[in-house]
């Protein structure tokens, strides 16, 4: 083979190798990036209205306990988490309804209403919350969380708006 011919043949091979290699790299590399970050692109937090009890069963001045379970799917794993709280009515007015989350604002134990103490007591570090969720005693940094959005259906069922983390 003559010199100039061989050179161009070499260059041809170099360029072709580069292009083919680049193509293979792109065709596999780009989907791979997508593959790796896919879970981060997922819409998190399913939203739903969760029924917690009949409005008529909630007596004025007596915290009404409720609980529900949500199943969260992470990849191939399903995790059931329990949630709970107290619905508190202070007057006849249906709008006057406070729905508290019973997760202690200190370290997330579950508080229980105590008739005797007239307070929610936390078993973990002896916190005390008033019927409205104000901190009366103990280490919690803030009042009990409140399910702000709730509604009463036509059938008289109280539902709270729940968004997964």
């Amino acid at each position, binding site marked *: 083979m003559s010199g100039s011919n061989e050179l161009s043949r070499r260059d041809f091979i170099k360029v072709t190798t580069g292009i083919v290699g680049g193509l293979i790299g792109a065709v*596999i590399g780009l*989907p*791979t990036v997508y*593959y*790796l970050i*896919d*879970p981060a692109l997922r819409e998190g937090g399913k939203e739903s209205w969760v029924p917690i009890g009949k409005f008529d069963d909630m007596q004025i001045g007596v915290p009404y306990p409720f609980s529900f379970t949500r199943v969260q799917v992470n990849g*191939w794993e399903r995790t059931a988490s329990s949630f709970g709280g107290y619905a508190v009515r202070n007057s006849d007015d249906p709008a006057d309804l406070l729905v508290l989350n019973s997760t202690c604002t200190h370290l997330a134990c579950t508080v229980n209403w105590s008739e005797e103490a007239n307070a929610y007591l936390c078993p973990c570090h002896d916190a005390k919350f008033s019927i409205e969720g104000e901190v009366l005693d103990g280490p919690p940094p803030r009042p009990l969380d409140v399910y702000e959005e709730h509604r009463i259906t036509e059938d008289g069922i109280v539902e709270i708006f729940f968004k997964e983390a």
Partner: protein
Amino acid sequence: MWKNIYLWLDERIGFNDLYANLLDRPEPKTTWWNTLGSASLFLFVMQGLTGIFLTVYYTPSPDHAYDSINYIMEGVAFGWLIRGIHHWGATLMVILVFIHMLRVFYTASFKYPRELTWLIGIGLFLATLGMGFTGYLLPWNQKSYWATVVGTQIAGTVPFIGEFTLKVLRGGPELSALTLQRFFSAHIWIIPAVLAALIGVHLFLIIKHGESHFPTKED
């Protein structure tokens, strides 16, 4: 600035020497049959990369292996592609390595001074088969489970040491979580490490000896 960095590196590494020794080696007249080793190497690298990406989601536990593979196939973007390449690449690699071995045999390239290249090649072939055998169990489906029951059973028929071998392979007398975990470990750490080391020596010897001439009619 890039030029200075390049020069600094070049002074310490010697890119020209590297280029001359690795890529600009003298070769006898070669054919497409001489590309099979490089093709095997390419597949080894591909299997390594796609394998690493699969471990991002795959879970080697009897509770989760099957579901996590399912998730890769249906839940993750391009999971089917990554797994597909790894799945078909595995079969292709066994075939390619085997044809590579056949061509080396057929062209008598295993003779002096390349016997050691050949012996290491045998190790490479066995290790490649080992990758296929251990990888097959990982999806933990019916086919892979029973294939491994049978495969390990075969090892169990060896006289004297058979039963012991079977227990070592299975991590006990039965297939269990221990089997899956040790197959996984073998598949992603032990055998690839062996393969990489053997490939290193294999390539060193090939560069040292150069490619062999194909025998002619007179030989």
